């Protein structure tokens, strides 16, 4: 169900996210003080290439990591053995995460 390639993808995406998560946690603690508003978010991130790259990398890694993670949970919980189905599931979930993520990224940085 997990071969070497999927394993490496899962671990590499985790390594990429490790420093990004710390930054994200710190930003959240900072940003939610006194509430949060659309204007406040946009003021920080809009037109910023730095934030776009930061969260772009984050969301690609998160989409890969979550898709493979859900694949494992699905396979083990339901004892699924069909590789073709699991591959399709992984790709579909990854694609949905990626599209929703890019849409959000576009909204807060580039639009």
């Amino acid at each position, binding site marked *: *169900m*997990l*071969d*070497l*390639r*999927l*394993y*490496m993808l899962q*671990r590499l995406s985790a390594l990429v996210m490790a420093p990004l998560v710390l930054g994200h946690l710190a930003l959240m603690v900072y940003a939610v003080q006194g509430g949060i508003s659309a204007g406040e978010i946009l003021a920080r991130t809009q037109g910023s290439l730095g934030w776009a790259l930061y969260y772009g990398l984050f969301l690609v890694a998160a989409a890969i990591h979550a898709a493979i993670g859900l694949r*494992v949970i699905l*396979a*083990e*919980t339901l*004892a699924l*053995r069909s*590789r073709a189905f699991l591959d399709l599931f992984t790709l579909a979930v990854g694609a949905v995460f990626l599209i929703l993520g890019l849409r959000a990224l576009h909204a807060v940085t580039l639009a």
Partner: protein
Amino acid sequence: MLDGPQTLSVSIWRGTGTTGAFQSFEVPRQGSQTVLDVVSWIQQNLDPTLTYRYACRVGMCGSCAMMVNGVPRWTCRTHVNKVDQGGALTIGPLRNLPVIKDLAADMDPFFEKWVKAEGLFHPARTRHEEVARVDPASEARRTADRAIECINCSVCYAACDTVAGNPDYLGPAALNRAWSVVNDERDAGRAEVLAAVSVSGGCHNCHSQGSCTRHCPNELSPLDSIAGLKRETARSFWRKGR
């Protein structure tokens, strides 16, 4: 005189294949009594049709493992007073394996995976050549040493929830053996072993739950062996792309 109840209430799994139920027996308690002693006493005194497996009785052969109060154990070296719950024992066949009858599990899938993981010696020399010399103090030999004393009892395999969720997963024992083969300087099949443990049921499915290492009666650490395989296969991934 023994402390506590003088009689053990023993529930034993009876049945063939996928059907069966627990049956209750009363067994007199004795000093230094092992779980295997209890099972043997029932078979010799109460029900001669009880099926179970054992051979050496001294923790070498690995044939007497069973589930005892929910935990896989080598029954010949497990004292009753260490595991009973107020004089109660529940004894079943090993988990994660098909049942042949009563307490005898079918070990075929366990050993088939052992072979699938290439957990066997791949000789590099013929009998006409000199015997290879292995330095007992070398790093590789000491790493192999830590994994070598496996008695094939399948306790780790029964303890593993990754095996339970993924029937193709090779399991801790086979992967532990593969790791000792990888660290054997005389072995010529290192690449084959690393390829065999990298397939979709291979070492990368391990979630490091650690139940294998927790319950191994010989105090080996399949958890560390599998981590070693993950490291070596990752290294070969960067070198060869697979």
